[in-house]
Protein backbone atom coordinates (compact mmCIF):
# COMPACT_ATOMS: atom_id res chain seq x y z
CA UNK A 1 0.00 0.00 0.00
CA UNK A 2 1.53 3.31 -0.94
CA UNK A 3 1.60 6.08 1.62
CA UNK A 4 0.83 9.73 0.99
CA UNK A 5 3.82 12.05 0.78
CA UNK A 6 4.07 15.84 0.71
CA UNK A 7 6.59 18.60 0.29
CA UNK A 8 6.71 20.48 3.60
CA UNK A 9 9.66 22.80 3.08
CA UNK A 10 11.55 24.49 0.24
CA UNK A 11 15.02 26.06 0.16
CA UNK A 12 16.98 27.79 -2.57
CA UNK A 13 20.09 29.84 -3.03
CA UNK A 14 20.01 33.15 -4.84
CA UNK A 15 20.82 32.37 -8.48
CA UNK A 16 23.45 34.36 -10.30
CA UNK A 17 26.08 33.88 -12.98
CA UNK A 18 28.88 33.60 -10.42
CA UNK A 19 28.89 32.32 -6.85
CA UNK A 20 32.66 32.47 -6.32
CA UNK A 21 32.23 32.96 -2.55
CA UNK A 22 31.17 29.34 -2.08
CA UNK A 23 32.33 25.97 -3.35
CA UNK A 24 29.90 23.33 -4.58
CA UNK A 25 29.48 21.70 -1.15
CA UNK A 26 28.81 25.04 0.52
CA UNK A 27 26.33 26.14 -2.14
CA UNK A 28 24.39 22.87 -1.95
CA UNK A 29 24.32 22.96 1.86
CA UNK A 30 22.86 26.51 1.75
CA UNK A 31 19.79 25.20 -0.07
CA UNK A 32 19.46 22.15 2.21
CA UNK A 33 19.59 24.15 5.44
CA UNK A 34 17.18 26.75 4.03
CA UNK A 35 14.73 23.95 3.22
CA UNK A 36 15.05 22.42 6.71
CA UNK A 37 14.44 25.81 8.28
CA UNK A 38 11.40 26.36 6.09
CA UNK A 39 10.04 22.91 7.01
CA UNK A 40 10.87 23.36 10.71
CA UNK A 41 12.55 19.95 10.57
CA UNK A 42 15.82 19.24 12.36
CA UNK A 43 18.65 17.37 10.66
CA UNK A 44 18.16 14.51 13.12
CA UNK A 45 14.67 13.91 11.72
CA UNK A 46 15.97 13.43 8.16
CA UNK A 47 16.24 9.77 7.14
CA UNK A 48 17.85 9.99 3.70
CA UNK A 49 19.03 12.26 0.90
CA UNK A 50 18.42 12.22 -2.84
CA UNK A 51 20.91 14.46 -4.65
CA UNK A 52 21.89 15.30 -8.21
CA UNK A 53 23.35 17.61 -10.79
CA UNK A 54 23.87 17.28 -14.52
CA UNK A 55 26.26 14.35 -15.07
CA UNK A 56 29.76 15.67 -15.68
CA UNK A 57 28.97 19.38 -15.37
CA UNK A 58 31.28 21.26 -13.04
CA UNK A 59 33.94 18.64 -13.67
CA UNK A 60 33.45 16.76 -10.41
CA UNK A 61 32.80 13.09 -11.06
CA UNK A 62 31.17 12.14 -7.75
CA UNK A 63 30.12 15.36 -6.04
CA UNK A 64 27.86 13.50 -3.60
CA UNK A 65 30.93 11.98 -1.97
CA UNK A 66 32.36 15.45 -1.35
CA UNK A 67 29.24 17.13 -0.10
CA UNK A 68 27.68 14.30 1.93
CA UNK A 69 28.68 15.57 5.34
CA UNK A 70 28.09 19.18 4.30
CA UNK A 71 24.40 18.46 3.94
CA UNK A 72 24.22 16.45 7.17
CA UNK A 73 24.19 13.07 5.45
CA UNK A 74 26.93 11.40 7.49
CA UNK A 75 25.69 7.94 8.44
CA UNK A 76 22.57 8.26 6.28
CA UNK A 77 21.70 6.93 2.81
CA UNK A 78 22.61 9.24 -0.06
CA UNK A 79 21.46 8.40 -3.56
CA UNK A 80 22.64 10.44 -6.52
CA UNK A 81 20.36 10.57 -9.53
CA UNK A 82 21.74 11.78 -12.84
CA UNK A 83 19.30 11.84 -15.75
CA UNK A 84 20.82 14.66 -17.79
CA UNK A 85 18.80 17.85 -18.12
CA UNK A 86 15.90 16.22 -16.27
CA UNK A 87 18.08 15.45 -13.25
CA UNK A 88 16.27 17.91 -10.99
CA UNK A 89 12.88 16.45 -11.96
CA UNK A 90 14.10 12.94 -11.28
CA UNK A 91 15.63 14.04 -7.95
CA UNK A 92 12.32 15.68 -6.97
CA UNK A 93 10.46 12.51 -7.94
CA UNK A 94 13.15 10.36 -6.33
CA UNK A 95 12.33 11.78 -2.91
CA UNK A 96 8.74 10.57 -3.29
CA UNK A 97 9.45 6.85 -3.69
CA UNK A 98 11.14 6.04 -0.33
CA UNK A 99 8.47 8.03 1.56
CA UNK A 100 5.54 6.53 -0.38
CA UNK A 101 6.97 3.04 0.02
CA UNK A 102 7.24 3.40 3.80
CA UNK A 103 11.02 2.98 3.82
CA UNK A 104 11.68 6.52 5.09
CA UNK A 105 9.56 9.16 6.82
CA UNK A 106 11.54 12.28 5.91
CA UNK A 107 13.71 12.67 2.83
CA UNK A 108 15.62 15.73 1.63
CA UNK A 109 16.09 16.15 -2.12
CA UNK A 110 18.63 18.65 -3.41
CA UNK A 111 19.76 19.50 -6.94
CA UNK A 112 22.28 22.04 -8.17
CA UNK A 113 24.57 23.38 -10.86
CA UNK A 114 27.60 25.60 -10.62
CA UNK A 115 28.37 26.82 -14.11
CA UNK A 116 30.95 29.36 -12.98
CA UNK A 117 33.29 26.49 -12.02
CA UNK A 118 33.62 25.84 -15.75
CA UNK A 119 36.27 27.96 -17.39
CA UNK A 120 34.57 28.20 -20.76
CA UNK A 121 31.31 27.25 -22.45
CA UNK A 122 32.99 24.07 -23.63
CA UNK A 123 33.35 22.87 -20.07
CA UNK A 124 29.71 23.53 -19.33
CA UNK A 125 28.27 22.13 -22.50
CA UNK A 126 31.20 20.06 -23.57
CA UNK A 127 31.15 16.85 -21.60
CA UNK A 128 31.37 14.15 -24.19
CA UNK A 129 27.90 12.75 -24.15
CA UNK A 130 26.30 16.17 -24.35
CA UNK A 131 28.66 17.37 -27.07
CA UNK A 132 28.23 14.21 -29.08
CA UNK A 133 24.50 14.14 -28.48
CA UNK A 134 24.23 17.53 -30.11
CA UNK A 135 26.63 16.53 -32.84
CA UNK A 136 24.48 13.53 -33.75
CA UNK A 137 21.43 15.68 -33.67
CA UNK A 138 23.00 18.38 -35.78
CA UNK A 139 24.12 15.76 -38.27
CA UNK A 140 20.61 14.40 -38.43
CA UNK A 141 19.32 17.81 -39.49
CA UNK A 142 22.30 18.74 -41.63
CA UNK A 143 23.65 21.49 -39.37
CA UNK A 144 27.34 22.08 -39.92
CA UNK A 145 29.89 22.02 -37.15
CA UNK A 146 30.61 25.76 -37.22
CA UNK A 147 26.98 26.62 -36.59
CA UNK A 148 26.72 23.92 -34.00
CA UNK A 149 29.62 25.43 -32.08
CA UNK A 150 28.10 28.90 -32.41
CA UNK A 151 24.98 27.57 -30.82
CA UNK A 152 26.88 25.76 -28.12
CA UNK A 153 27.87 29.22 -26.95
CA UNK A 154 24.28 30.00 -26.09
CA UNK A 155 23.43 26.68 -24.51
CA UNK A 156 23.95 23.04 -25.30
CA UNK A 157 20.32 22.39 -26.07
CA UNK A 158 20.04 25.24 -28.59
CA UNK A 159 20.97 22.95 -31.46
CA UNK A 160 17.79 21.04 -30.80
CA UNK A 161 15.64 23.94 -29.77
CA UNK A 162 15.95 26.03 -32.97
CA UNK A 163 14.61 23.21 -35.12
CA UNK A 164 12.00 22.39 -32.52
CA UNK A 165 10.83 26.02 -32.50
CA UNK A 166 10.55 26.20 -36.30
CA UNK A 167 8.62 22.94 -36.48
CA UNK A 168 6.23 24.33 -33.87
CA UNK A 169 5.85 27.65 -35.71
CA UNK A 170 4.95 25.79 -38.90
CA UNK A 171 2.32 23.61 -37.37
CA UNK A 172 0.79 26.11 -34.93
CA UNK A 173 1.04 29.40 -36.81
CA UNK A 174 2.86 31.14 -33.98
CA UNK A 175 5.54 33.73 -34.82
CA UNK A 176 8.84 34.99 -33.46
CA UNK A 177 6.91 37.83 -31.79
CA UNK A 178 5.24 35.27 -29.53
CA UNK A 179 8.67 34.15 -28.35
CA UNK A 180 9.41 37.81 -27.56
CA UNK A 181 6.25 37.84 -25.43
CA UNK A 182 7.18 34.67 -23.53
CA UNK A 183 10.74 35.88 -22.86
CA UNK A 184 9.53 39.29 -21.70
CA UNK A 185 7.02 37.63 -19.37
CA UNK A 186 9.75 35.38 -17.96
CA UNK A 187 11.97 38.38 -17.17
CA UNK A 188 9.09 40.36 -15.64
CA UNK A 189 8.03 37.40 -13.50
CA UNK A 190 11.65 36.77 -12.46
CA UNK A 191 11.81 40.37 -11.21
CA UNK A 192 9.21 39.36 -8.60
CA UNK A 193 11.17 36.24 -7.57
CA UNK A 194 14.05 37.15 -5.26
CA UNK A 195 15.92 33.92 -6.08
CA UNK A 196 15.76 34.33 -9.88
CA UNK A 197 18.70 35.25 -12.11
CA UNK A 198 17.63 37.35 -15.13
CA UNK A 199 15.33 39.94 -13.56
CA UNK A 200 13.95 42.74 -15.71
CA UNK A 201 11.03 44.63 -14.18
CA UNK A 202 8.64 45.94 -16.83
CA UNK A 203 10.38 44.11 -19.68
CA UNK A 204 8.29 44.34 -22.87
CA UNK A 205 8.22 42.15 -25.99
CA UNK A 206 9.60 45.19 -27.85
CA UNK A 207 12.66 45.20 -25.54
CA UNK A 208 13.30 41.57 -26.45
CA UNK A 209 12.67 42.20 -30.17
CA UNK A 210 15.50 44.73 -30.20
CA UNK A 211 18.08 42.09 -29.26
CA UNK A 212 20.29 40.49 -31.89
CA UNK A 213 19.12 37.46 -33.85
CA UNK A 214 21.46 34.55 -32.99
CA UNK A 215 20.05 31.59 -34.89
CA UNK A 216 16.62 31.85 -36.41
CA UNK A 217 14.15 32.00 -34.73
CA UNK A 218 16.05 32.86 -31.55
CA UNK A 219 17.24 36.29 -30.51
CA UNK A 220 19.75 36.94 -27.76
CA UNK A 221 16.88 38.04 -25.51
CA UNK A 222 15.21 34.63 -25.90
CA UNK A 223 18.03 32.62 -24.39
CA UNK A 224 18.26 31.43 -20.79
CA UNK A 225 21.32 32.37 -18.72
CA UNK A 226 23.81 29.89 -17.21
CA UNK A 227 23.24 30.15 -13.48
CA UNK A 228 24.92 29.01 -10.28
CA UNK A 229 22.43 27.76 -7.72
CA UNK A 230 20.83 24.96 -5.76
CA UNK A 231 17.31 24.05 -4.69
CA UNK A 232 16.08 21.63 -2.06
CA UNK A 233 12.79 20.22 -0.79
CA UNK A 234 11.84 18.32 2.36
CA UNK A 235 9.41 15.45 1.72
CA UNK A 236 7.52 13.84 4.59
CA UNK A 237 4.93 11.13 5.21
CA UNK A 238 1.35 12.16 5.96
CA UNK A 239 1.34 12.40 9.78
CA UNK A 240 4.48 14.49 9.98
CA UNK A 241 3.43 16.55 6.95
CA UNK A 242 0.15 17.50 8.62
CA UNK A 243 1.92 18.30 11.89
CA UNK A 244 4.67 20.44 10.35
CA UNK A 245 2.99 22.28 7.49
CA UNK A 246 -0.15 24.39 7.44
CA UNK A 247 -0.65 23.61 3.75
CA UNK A 248 1.62 20.80 2.55
CA UNK A 249 2.10 20.29 -1.20
CA UNK A 250 1.04 16.69 -1.78
CA UNK A 251 2.47 14.48 -4.49
CA UNK A 252 -0.61 13.38 -6.45
CA UNK A 253 0.84 11.96 -9.62
CA UNK A 254 4.20 11.56 -11.29
CA UNK A 255 5.66 9.95 -14.38
CA UNK A 256 8.77 10.02 -16.53
CA UNK A 257 8.99 8.79 -20.11
CA UNK A 258 11.16 9.25 -23.14
CA UNK A 259 10.54 8.86 -26.86
CA UNK A 260 12.46 8.05 -30.02
CA UNK A 261 13.29 11.67 -30.69
CA UNK A 262 14.91 11.96 -27.28
CA UNK A 263 16.81 8.74 -27.71
CA UNK A 264 18.40 9.63 -31.05
CA UNK A 265 16.36 6.95 -32.77
CA UNK A 266 14.77 9.17 -35.35
CA UNK A 267 14.31 8.27 -39.02
CA UNK A 268 17.64 9.81 -39.95
CA UNK A 269 19.43 7.21 -37.84
CA UNK A 270 17.67 4.33 -39.51
CA UNK A 271 15.08 4.25 -36.76
CA UNK A 272 11.36 4.64 -37.04
CA UNK A 273 10.99 7.50 -34.56
CA UNK A 274 9.43 10.88 -35.08
CA UNK A 275 11.53 13.50 -36.80
CA UNK A 276 9.68 16.55 -35.53
CA UNK A 277 11.51 17.54 -32.32
CA UNK A 278 8.49 19.55 -31.21
CA UNK A 279 6.45 16.34 -31.16
CA UNK A 280 7.58 15.53 -27.59
CA UNK A 281 5.52 12.39 -27.14
CA UNK A 282 7.53 11.59 -24.00
CA UNK A 283 6.11 14.66 -22.33
CA UNK A 284 2.59 13.84 -23.48
CA UNK A 285 2.77 10.23 -22.24
CA UNK A 286 4.30 11.37 -18.93
CA UNK A 287 1.50 13.90 -18.48
CA UNK A 288 -1.28 11.42 -19.23
CA UNK A 289 0.19 8.89 -16.78
CA UNK A 290 0.74 11.49 -14.07
CA UNK A 291 -2.80 12.88 -14.46
CA UNK A 292 -4.29 9.38 -14.29
CA UNK A 293 -2.40 8.72 -11.06
CA UNK A 294 -3.57 12.09 -9.70
CA UNK A 295 -7.17 11.45 -10.72
CA UNK A 296 -7.17 14.45 -13.04
CA UNK A 297 -9.47 14.01 -16.01
CA UNK A 298 -9.45 17.47 -17.58
CA UNK A 299 -6.12 19.24 -17.01
CA UNK A 300 -7.43 22.41 -18.71
CA UNK A 301 -9.99 22.75 -15.92
CA UNK A 302 -8.33 21.00 -12.99
CA UNK A 303 -4.75 22.30 -13.21
CA UNK A 304 -4.42 25.81 -11.78
CA UNK A 305 -0.89 26.72 -12.84
CA UNK A 306 2.26 25.17 -14.28
CA UNK A 307 6.00 25.47 -14.08
CA UNK A 308 7.57 24.27 -17.32
CA UNK A 309 11.09 23.56 -18.43
CA UNK A 310 11.47 26.36 -20.98
CA UNK A 311 15.12 27.41 -21.47
CA UNK A 312 13.84 28.68 -24.85
CA UNK A 313 10.53 30.55 -25.03
CA UNK A 314 9.10 28.27 -27.75
CA UNK A 315 9.23 25.44 -25.22
CA UNK A 316 6.78 27.07 -22.85
CA UNK A 317 4.19 26.96 -25.65
CA UNK A 318 5.11 23.48 -26.91
CA UNK A 319 5.15 21.82 -23.51
CA UNK A 320 2.04 23.62 -22.23
CA UNK A 321 0.17 21.92 -25.08
CA UNK A 322 1.86 18.57 -24.46
CA UNK A 323 0.81 18.81 -20.82
CA UNK A 324 -2.77 19.16 -22.03
CA UNK A 325 -3.17 22.68 -20.65
CA UNK A 326 -4.21 24.07 -24.07
CA UNK A 327 -5.55 22.57 -27.26
CA UNK A 328 -3.05 21.63 -29.93
CA UNK A 329 -1.48 24.73 -31.55
CA UNK A 330 -3.33 27.26 -29.40
CA UNK A 331 -0.97 28.10 -26.52
CA UNK A 332 0.29 31.21 -28.33
CA UNK A 333 -3.28 32.49 -28.62
CA UNK A 334 -3.73 32.09 -24.86
CA UNK A 335 -0.42 33.93 -24.41
CA UNK A 336 -1.72 36.80 -26.56
CA UNK A 337 -4.83 37.04 -24.37
CA UNK A 338 -2.73 37.19 -21.19
CA UNK A 339 -4.05 33.83 -19.95
CA UNK A 340 -0.52 32.65 -19.11
CA UNK A 341 0.37 35.78 -17.13
CA UNK A 342 0.90 35.59 -13.40
CA UNK A 343 -2.69 36.82 -12.89
CA UNK A 344 -4.09 34.94 -15.88
CA UNK A 345 -6.38 31.93 -16.17
CA UNK A 346 -3.47 29.47 -16.49
CA UNK A 347 -0.28 31.09 -15.16
CA UNK A 348 2.83 29.55 -16.74
CA UNK A 349 6.18 29.93 -15.00
CA UNK A 350 5.24 32.71 -12.55
CA UNK A 351 8.75 32.27 -11.11
CA UNK A 352 10.27 33.32 -14.45
CA UNK A 353 11.10 29.69 -15.12
CA UNK A 354 14.19 28.20 -16.72
CA UNK A 355 14.20 31.02 -19.27
CA UNK A 356 15.20 33.40 -16.47
CA UNK A 357 17.22 31.02 -14.25
CA UNK A 358 19.05 27.95 -15.51
CA UNK A 359 21.22 26.08 -13.03
CA UNK A 360 20.74 23.04 -15.23
CA UNK A 361 20.76 20.12 -12.77
CA UNK A 362 18.54 22.14 -10.46
CA UNK A 363 16.17 23.57 -13.09
CA UNK A 364 13.64 20.73 -13.23
CA UNK A 365 13.70 20.46 -9.40
CA UNK A 366 12.91 24.16 -9.23
CA UNK A 367 9.74 23.55 -11.22
CA UNK A 368 8.57 21.12 -8.51
CA UNK A 369 9.73 23.49 -5.77
CA UNK A 370 7.93 26.45 -7.37
CA UNK A 371 4.69 24.50 -7.72
CA UNK A 372 5.02 23.54 -4.04
CA UNK A 373 5.52 27.19 -3.08
CA UNK A 374 2.36 28.18 -4.99
CA UNK A 375 0.29 25.47 -3.28
CA UNK A 376 1.74 26.29 0.14
CA UNK A 377 1.07 30.01 -0.49
CA UNK A 378 4.73 30.85 0.07
CA UNK A 379 5.70 32.28 -3.31
CA UNK A 380 5.65 35.82 -1.90
CA UNK A 381 5.89 38.45 -4.68
CA UNK A 382 5.26 35.94 -7.45
CA UNK A 383 2.39 34.12 -5.74
CA UNK A 384 -0.40 33.78 -8.30
CA UNK A 385 -3.58 35.54 -7.14
CA UNK A 386 -5.86 32.59 -7.92
CA UNK A 387 -6.25 29.66 -5.52
CA UNK A 388 -3.87 26.85 -6.43
CA UNK A 389 -5.28 23.39 -5.74
CA UNK A 390 -3.40 21.47 -8.44
CA UNK A 391 -0.14 22.41 -10.11
CA UNK A 392 1.97 20.62 -12.68
CA UNK A 393 5.77 20.66 -12.78
CA UNK A 394 7.58 19.60 -15.93
CA UNK A 395 11.18 18.70 -16.74
CA UNK A 396 12.85 18.18 -20.11
CA UNK A 397 16.23 16.60 -20.68
CA UNK A 398 17.57 17.91 -23.96
CA UNK A 399 18.34 15.42 -26.70
CA UNK A 400 19.18 12.29 -24.80
CA UNK A 401 16.93 12.10 -21.80
CA UNK A 402 13.53 11.90 -20.24
CA UNK A 403 10.58 14.10 -19.55
CA UNK A 404 9.38 14.33 -15.97
CA UNK A 405 5.87 15.38 -15.02
CA UNK A 406 4.90 15.84 -11.38
CA UNK A 407 1.41 16.82 -10.23
CA UNK A 408 1.22 18.44 -6.81
CA UNK A 409 -1.94 19.39 -4.97
CA UNK A 410 -3.41 20.79 -1.77
CA UNK A 411 -4.88 17.38 -0.88
CA UNK A 412 -3.22 13.95 -0.95
CA UNK A 413 -5.15 12.64 -3.94
CA UNK A 414 -8.45 11.28 -5.00
Amino acid at each position, binding site marked *: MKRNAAIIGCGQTKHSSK*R*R*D*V*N*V*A*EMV*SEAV*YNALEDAQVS*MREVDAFIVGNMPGF*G*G*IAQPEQWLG*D*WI*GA*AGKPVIRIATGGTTGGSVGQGAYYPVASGLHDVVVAVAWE*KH*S*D*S*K*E*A*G*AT*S*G*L*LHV*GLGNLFHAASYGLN*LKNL*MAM*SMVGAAAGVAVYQAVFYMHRSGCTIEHFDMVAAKARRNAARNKYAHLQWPGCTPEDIAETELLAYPFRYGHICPASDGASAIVVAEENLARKKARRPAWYKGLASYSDEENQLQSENFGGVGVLDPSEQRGCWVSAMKAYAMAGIKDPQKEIDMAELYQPFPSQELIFAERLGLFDEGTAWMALEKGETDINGRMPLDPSGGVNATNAIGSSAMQRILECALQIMGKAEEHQVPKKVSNAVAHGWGGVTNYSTVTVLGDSPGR
Partner: protein
Amino acid sequence: MKSESEIIDVKTLPFTANFIWATGFMMQRFIEELASRKILGVKCPGCGYTYVPPRSRCGKCYAKIEEENLVTLSGKGTLVSYTTGHVALDGQGNFIDLQEPAIIGAIKLEDADSTIFMPIEGIEPRDVVEGLKVELQWREETKGELEDIRCFKPA
Protein backbone atom coordinates in the same frame (compact mmCIF):
# COMPACT_ATOMS: atom_id res chain seq x y z
CA MET B 1 37.08 1.05 -51.58
CA LYS B 2 38.40 3.95 -49.56
CA SER B 3 42.11 4.48 -49.30
CA GLU B 4 43.51 4.85 -45.84
CA SER B 5 44.19 8.58 -46.29
CA GLU B 6 40.45 9.26 -46.59
CA ILE B 7 39.77 8.05 -43.09
CA ILE B 8 39.75 10.99 -40.68
CA ASP B 9 41.93 10.44 -37.67
CA VAL B 10 40.21 12.31 -34.83
CA LYS B 11 42.87 13.31 -32.35
CA THR B 12 41.05 16.10 -30.56
CA LEU B 13 37.50 17.20 -30.00
CA PRO B 14 36.42 20.61 -31.28
CA PHE B 15 36.10 22.10 -27.82
CA THR B 16 38.01 22.33 -24.57
CA ALA B 17 36.77 21.69 -21.06
CA ASN B 18 38.73 23.45 -18.33
CA PHE B 19 37.54 24.25 -14.85
CA ILE B 20 38.09 27.02 -12.32
CA TRP B 21 36.63 25.62 -9.14
CA ALA B 22 35.72 28.10 -6.42
CA THR B 23 37.34 27.03 -3.17
CA GLY B 24 34.86 28.90 -1.01
CA PHE B 25 35.55 31.66 1.47
CA MET B 26 37.12 29.62 4.30
CA MET B 27 39.54 27.72 2.07
CA GLN B 28 40.49 30.94 0.34
CA ARG B 29 41.44 32.46 3.72
CA PHE B 30 43.48 29.32 4.50
CA ILE B 31 45.42 29.61 1.25
CA GLU B 32 45.99 33.39 1.55
CA GLU B 33 47.28 33.11 5.13
CA LEU B 34 49.95 30.62 4.04
CA ALA B 35 51.83 33.67 2.69
CA SER B 36 52.38 34.84 6.29
CA ARG B 37 53.21 31.26 7.37
CA LYS B 38 49.98 30.76 9.26
CA ILE B 39 47.98 27.53 9.35
CA LEU B 40 44.28 28.30 9.82
CA GLY B 41 41.68 25.92 11.20
CA VAL B 42 38.20 26.37 12.65
CA LYS B 43 36.84 25.27 16.00
CA CYS B 44 33.15 24.34 15.62
CA PRO B 45 31.03 26.53 17.92
CA GLY B 46 28.59 23.65 18.30
CA CYS B 47 30.73 20.67 19.25
CA GLY B 48 34.30 21.96 19.50
CA TYR B 49 35.64 19.72 16.72
CA THR B 50 38.58 21.51 15.09
CA TYR B 51 38.94 21.26 11.32
CA VAL B 52 42.00 21.99 9.25
CA PRO B 53 41.69 23.30 6.58
CA PRO B 54 38.78 25.37 7.88
CA ARG B 55 35.21 24.83 6.65
CA SER B 56 31.93 26.66 7.05
CA ARG B 57 29.59 23.83 8.10
CA CYS B 58 30.24 21.16 10.73
CA GLY B 59 29.87 17.62 9.44
CA LYS B 60 29.53 16.32 13.01
CA CYS B 61 26.87 18.55 14.60
CA TYR B 62 25.67 20.51 11.50
CA ALA B 63 26.44 23.92 13.10
CA LYS B 64 27.25 26.88 10.86
CA ILE B 65 30.89 27.87 11.33
CA GLU B 66 31.80 31.55 10.96
CA GLU B 67 34.94 33.61 10.44
CA GLU B 68 35.12 34.30 14.20
CA ASN B 69 35.66 30.56 14.74
CA LEU B 70 38.96 30.60 12.86
CA VAL B 71 41.97 29.50 14.93
CA THR B 72 45.70 29.51 14.16
CA LEU B 73 47.48 26.18 14.52
CA SER B 74 51.14 25.62 15.33
CA GLY B 75 52.34 23.55 12.41
CA LYS B 76 53.48 20.83 14.84
CA GLY B 77 51.69 17.51 14.78
CA THR B 78 51.66 13.74 15.13
CA LEU B 79 51.77 11.13 12.39
CA VAL B 80 48.69 8.92 12.67
CA SER B 81 49.14 6.84 9.52
CA TYR B 82 51.40 6.71 6.48
CA THR B 83 52.34 4.96 3.27
CA THR B 84 55.31 4.93 0.91
CA GLY B 85 54.84 5.56 -2.79
CA HIS B 86 57.18 3.98 -5.34
CA VAL B 87 55.59 5.39 -8.47
CA ALA B 88 54.24 8.81 -9.40
CA LEU B 89 52.12 10.24 -12.22
CA ASP B 90 53.98 12.06 -14.98
CA GLY B 91 51.21 14.52 -15.81
CA GLN B 92 50.36 12.72 -19.08
CA GLY B 93 48.44 9.89 -17.49
CA ASN B 94 51.41 7.52 -17.14
CA PHE B 95 53.23 6.11 -14.12
CA ILE B 96 56.92 6.74 -13.60
CA ASP B 97 59.21 4.92 -11.17
CA LEU B 98 60.58 7.11 -8.38
CA GLN B 99 64.31 7.06 -7.65
CA GLU B 100 63.58 7.12 -3.91
CA PRO B 101 60.29 6.06 -2.34
CA ALA B 102 58.15 8.99 -1.16
CA ILE B 103 56.46 8.93 2.25
CA ILE B 104 52.95 10.37 2.56
CA GLY B 105 51.52 10.74 6.03
CA ALA B 106 48.20 11.55 7.69
CA ILE B 107 49.08 14.20 10.26
CA LYS B 108 47.00 15.43 13.17
CA LEU B 109 48.15 18.95 13.99
CA GLU B 110 48.24 20.08 17.63
CA ASP B 111 44.75 21.24 18.72
CA ALA B 112 43.17 19.84 15.54
CA ASP B 113 40.80 16.87 15.27
CA SER B 114 40.89 16.30 11.52
CA THR B 115 44.05 15.13 9.74
CA ILE B 116 45.87 16.40 6.66
CA PHE B 117 47.85 14.35 4.15
CA MET B 118 51.35 15.65 3.43
CA PRO B 119 54.73 14.37 2.21
CA ILE B 120 57.13 13.37 5.01
CA GLU B 121 60.81 14.02 4.38
CA GLY B 122 64.06 13.74 6.33
CA ILE B 123 63.49 10.17 7.49
CA GLU B 124 64.03 6.70 6.03
CA PRO B 125 60.82 4.78 5.31
CA ARG B 126 61.87 1.96 7.66
CA ASP B 127 62.21 4.44 10.56
CA VAL B 128 58.70 5.89 10.18
CA VAL B 129 56.36 4.92 13.02
CA GLU B 130 52.85 5.86 14.01
CA GLY B 131 53.00 8.57 16.69
CA LEU B 132 56.07 10.24 15.19
CA LYS B 133 56.22 13.95 16.08
CA VAL B 134 56.49 16.04 12.90
CA GLU B 135 56.80 19.70 12.00
CA LEU B 136 55.73 21.70 8.93
CA GLN B 137 58.43 22.89 6.54
CA TRP B 138 57.71 26.07 4.55
CA ARG B 139 59.18 26.68 1.14
CA GLU B 140 61.80 29.43 0.89
CA GLU B 141 59.42 32.16 -0.26
CA THR B 142 55.74 31.84 0.72
CA LYS B 143 53.22 33.33 -1.74
CA GLY B 144 49.77 32.39 -0.47
CA GLU B 145 49.59 29.15 -2.48
CA LEU B 146 49.12 25.54 -1.39
CA GLU B 147 52.68 24.85 -2.55
CA ASP B 148 53.89 27.06 0.34
CA ILE B 149 53.69 23.92 2.48
CA ARG B 150 56.71 21.96 1.27
CA CYS B 151 56.47 18.92 3.52
CA PHE B 152 56.67 17.75 7.14
CA LYS B 153 59.86 16.59 8.84
CA PRO B 154 60.45 14.78 12.16
CA ALA B 155 60.46 17.41 14.95
